[in-house]
């Protein structure tokens, strides 16, 4: 067992957990933040994407001890005080989700992209989002949602 300190969605946590578990298990099983989904546990689908020290990362590919001292943002932190972010709003308005299982990961990847590049082109969006798989939407509405949210967040 190991003690891990980390910040998730601006809240500080201190967790005792086995050393070999992943950040994904830590979030879901120990902090009960189940918005982050497990789709493959092998870094192949992107459903568990979180923002890890400022960058999008597959939580299933990060060992819990690596998260000691880390700052993590998950889907639960995207809406503030019960108000959806423009990105979340845009996903709804552009039908960028169907079954919704990939959606938390999609939104976190898009959040990391927009934080680094507030005005991405469609090609830049595809490049940044390529690691996130969706079986329902055909991706097109997701690209539109991110594009429109970027415009909205910039006040365009």
């Amino acid at each position, binding site marked *: 067992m190991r003690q891990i300190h980390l910040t998730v969605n601006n809240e500080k946590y201190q967790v005792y957990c086995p050393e070999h578990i992943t950040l994904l298990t830590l979030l*879901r099983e120990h902090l009960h*933040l*189940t*918005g*982050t*989904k*497990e*789709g*493959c*546990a*092998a870094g*192949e*689908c992107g*459903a568990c994407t979180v923002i890890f020290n400022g960058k999008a990362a597959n939580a299933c590919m990060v060992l819990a001890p690596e998260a000691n001292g880390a700052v993590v943002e*998950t*889907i*639960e932190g*995207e*809406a503030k005080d019960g108000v*959806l972010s423009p990105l*979340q709003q845009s*996903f*709804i*308005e*552009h*039908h960028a*989700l*169907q*079954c*919704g*299982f*990939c*959606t*938390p990961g999609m*939104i976190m990847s898009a959040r990391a992209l927009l934080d680094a590049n507030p005005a991405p082109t469609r090609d830049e*969006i*595809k490049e940044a*989002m*390529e690691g*996130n*798989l*969706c*079986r*329902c*939407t*055909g*991706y*097109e*509405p*997701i*690209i539109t949602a991110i594009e429109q949210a970027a415009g909205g967040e910039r006040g365009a």
Partner: protein
Amino acid sequence: MREYIGKGALRHDGIEKVTGQAEYLGDIKLNGMLYAKIKTSPYAHAQIVSIDTSKAEALPGVRAVLTGRDENVMVGLYMVDRWAMAAEKTRYYGEVVAAVAADTQEIADRAAELIEIEYMPLPPVLDVREAVKASSPQVHENSEVYDYIKGVFHPEPGRNIANRTKVRKGDVDAAFLRADVVIEHTYEQPQVFHLPLEPHGTIVQWGAGDKVKIHTSAQSPFAVRDLFAHGFQLPRSKVEVNVPYVGGGFGGKAGIHMEPLVGMLSKRCGGRPVKLIPTREEECATFPCRQGLVARVKTGATKDGKIIAEEVEYLWDGGAYADYGVNISRAGAVTACGPYDIENVKVDSVTVYTNKIFGTAYRGFGHPEVFFGIERQRDLLAKELGMCPVELRLKNLLMPGAHTITGELITEHTGRVDKCLKMVAEKLNVGQDYTPEEKAEFQKTGKYRAKAAAVLQKSPAMPTWSASSAVVHMNEDGTVHITVGGVDFGQGTYTVLQQIAAERLQIPIEKIVMAPGVNTDMSPYDWQTVASRMTVLCGNAVCEACDDLTEQLLEMGSIVLRASKHEVALGDECVYVKQNPQYSMPYSKICMGYTYENGNAIGGPIIGRGKSIAQGLTNLDPETGQGKTALDWTYGAHAIEIEVDTHTGDIRVVDMASCLDVGRVMNEAMVHGQMIGGVLQGLGTTFSEAVYYDGEGRLLTRNLTDYKIATFKDMPEKLEICCVETPQLDGPYGARGIGEHPLIAITAVIANALANATGAEMYDLPLSADRVRAALAKE
């Protein structure tokens, strides 16, 4: 009148899904819950010699170890041929042989490793063409004892044949003799995974007094209840199935899966809830997939391009069990020749057992597979005749007055495949040649472009009696809750039902709420959420339920307003007197009963109920295949322009147009969502998706690296979605089902374009770069 049909509404569940609040099966934890792990077969076909569970049982924290020899149950939707665990022999790599329940997932995983199983390998049956021969080793030795729906399916025990559906129309042999041109080709397609992002998860609690509570990631809660109860000989009333948010299904979560196995584990553990979430590898290896198909198609035509005869043999690679998949050969027979008017037809559509992952429903239910061969065949016939392939199709398509191959009359209300084809062909100028400059550029770069078009059709393949129902409750404030027994696992059914209710009741859509999950103890019955049947059947049930509610509001209103029922009407969420609209009563004052000033109360809570069942469907004649199986036919067409890099074999989709005759657009954005998503899934099937085994039948594609689905980078560069609207007479507001259709015929339209671009005729899938390059090298 406010309009809620057409432009549509935003998803009913958007907020829950973008915030991570939507609770899926994996997010559920119950008090006292144990964790399960399955132990699967490393052989495709093997006798189980012995199983030693002693080491696993000795591990601290292990609560139950179960093998097929301890306790077992047989399940199956149409063909009851599948045990919860293999007992005597295993029939595919990945089949469950034993299972464990333990205090933690880690202990369960370790315990499964400690189970020792001795196998005696048997020769695996891996090729349907071999499997179908009388001399083949048998996948099921005693299949004559299996229960199945008699009169609908026709198994041939003693051979690896779980069903043969025949269609006989006219006289094919005579017609082939008359034909000016006869062509015959064989088309092959591999098995394909559904690949929902969420795996199949299940929690079962087998409580005292045999009261069973199941939480499961399923498309069809009532089918799970029915098959579970039937398997264990329990009354339906003792089995409660709860379905939370479901992370995609595509057919793979229809029918029943691990619920019986997990139920037996729970029973062994004194009724503690047991949870099973398969790993992605287990999801690939153990759960069913889309069937493979070997299709032999022989077509005869006159020299002016009229198809006069078609003989088809479909060998469906059903894998180890026919369970649900047996109905795919029947559906494949009904649609065997596509939306064409052909007088002489002979079809044999056969479900074949092999030692592979077993097949089940998959978006399109056999049609994407059938249409690869049929729509390739049409282009090849056009080439043989020197005709434009679009013209050849237009000459032969089903038009009002024609009959399908099973004898169903096409009317002016059935839908218009010709309009769909014309629309997409015009949008892409299919048939127009490239300029000499463009052709020179193709030669220079080695990147050749070409176009093609193809048509599609599908009707639901479901039992004639498959029913839906809906309950509409009005709340104290006049808002409305709708409960149905079908599941919205992303396709948007619930939003459309909300729109239907808003339109019908003329209540703002924000005031209409869909109950988010289904619970068989509380929700009204629905057969299954499959076959693109929900908008039509469940939509009609919601219409009827709303009309029932309306009648009750009018009745209460007329009493309270002291007017005859015919003198009152509904509007602005009130009942009012037609002659004196100022005399009105808001719904909120009457929907829980009305209370007079002196305290007298009348009426009571107003609840509308509705039901629907397809009208006039019949079973097929066992010898001729004649009958009416279609609730509705949705037709469509795709046109495409591709660029083939002849150096690498890569194919790029440059432009595309897809069109369906949807009857009525219920929600434009959602129609587009289904169509874009379906097209992309079809592109995956075309370019990269295939289940591969080694020579011994061991699965090779067990993860998302070896099995690739389309990503953001595989989108077509341009995709235009269009709709034809020929109203369906019995569809709600004229609508038809469209969920499965967009991915039908995608494989064919691309293979046809590939042939047009390069001359390489491909008869098998996928059209991956390596295989295309190999085909080009042969040219």
